[in-house]
């Protein structure tokens, strides 16, 4: 029984590891932190693996732990990111603002909550309500944070051209 559960966990982690690291990276902006965060999330899921399996959606469970751990990281360590007037990446002539570097740079000027809203709402395509549940805040907060974050991103207009929902 335990061997079966362990094998199930191995398969799950092997399959979902890249996606969770990418989510953690989207939230933290740092690959080292992202891998640590993802590992913590999988370890916590493994600690309650039979219950996680019974609940029926291990992917959502691990994703929620990643989000919570990221929130805790900011609460506990008082990590702060200060907004800056200019981005080095975007100020370099000849670099397309829609490039990967520019978008990453633009995301980094967002606060952690605003970045999380952008990632969950516009990358993972969660609804406002689902995003609010995931972040433990109200739908109104999600909307206002999304609005502010998009306004910041629109300062680099090419980044968000197109049909934003």
């Amino acid at each position, binding site marked *: 029984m335990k061997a079966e559960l*362990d094998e199930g*966990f*191995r398969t799950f*982690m*092997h399959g979902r*590891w*890249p996606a969770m*690291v*990418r*989510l953690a*990276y*989207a939230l933290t902006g740092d*690959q080292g932190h*992202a*891998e640590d965060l*993802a*590992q*913590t999330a*999988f*370890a*916590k*899921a*493994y*600690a*309650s*693996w039979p219950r996680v399996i019974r609940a029926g959606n291990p992917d959502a469970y691990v994703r929620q732990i990643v989000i919570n751990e990221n929130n805790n990281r900011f609460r506990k360590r008082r990590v702060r990111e200060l907004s800056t007037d200019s981005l080095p990446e975007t100020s370099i002539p000849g670099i397309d603002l*829609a490039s*990967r570097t520019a*978008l*990453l740079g633009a995301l980094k000027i967002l606060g952690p909550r605003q970045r999380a809203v*952008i*990632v969950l709402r*516009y*990358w993972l*395509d969660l609804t406002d309500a689902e995003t609010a549940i995931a972040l433990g805040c109200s739908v109104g907060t999600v909307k206002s944070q999304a609005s502010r974050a998009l306004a910041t*991103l629109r300062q680099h207009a090419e*980044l*968000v*051209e*197109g*049909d*934003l929902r």
Partner: protein
Amino acid sequence: VNLHEQLDDVFEAISPAPAPIEATMKRGTRIRWRRRVVAVTGVAAVVAAAIGVPLTVHWQASPAPAITRYSVTVRPPGPHAPANERGTEFKPCCVDG
């Protein structure tokens, strides 16, 4: 190109290190044990509190037993006293009176 696609392009480009599965499972096992220890400690603390608190409260709430000292002065029974008489109360007020 909409924001979703741009974000997709950015984050799909990340190539994570291989999944540290065995290390994660060991870490998960440690977390599980820590949770069990915390749970057992919590239960023990609740049981100790459930037993200890009422005892302490009871001990503090109950008043100290009143110690009443009676001072009785008796006279030995006289020569014609009934057989079962052990003594006669001495009342100073009567003597004074």
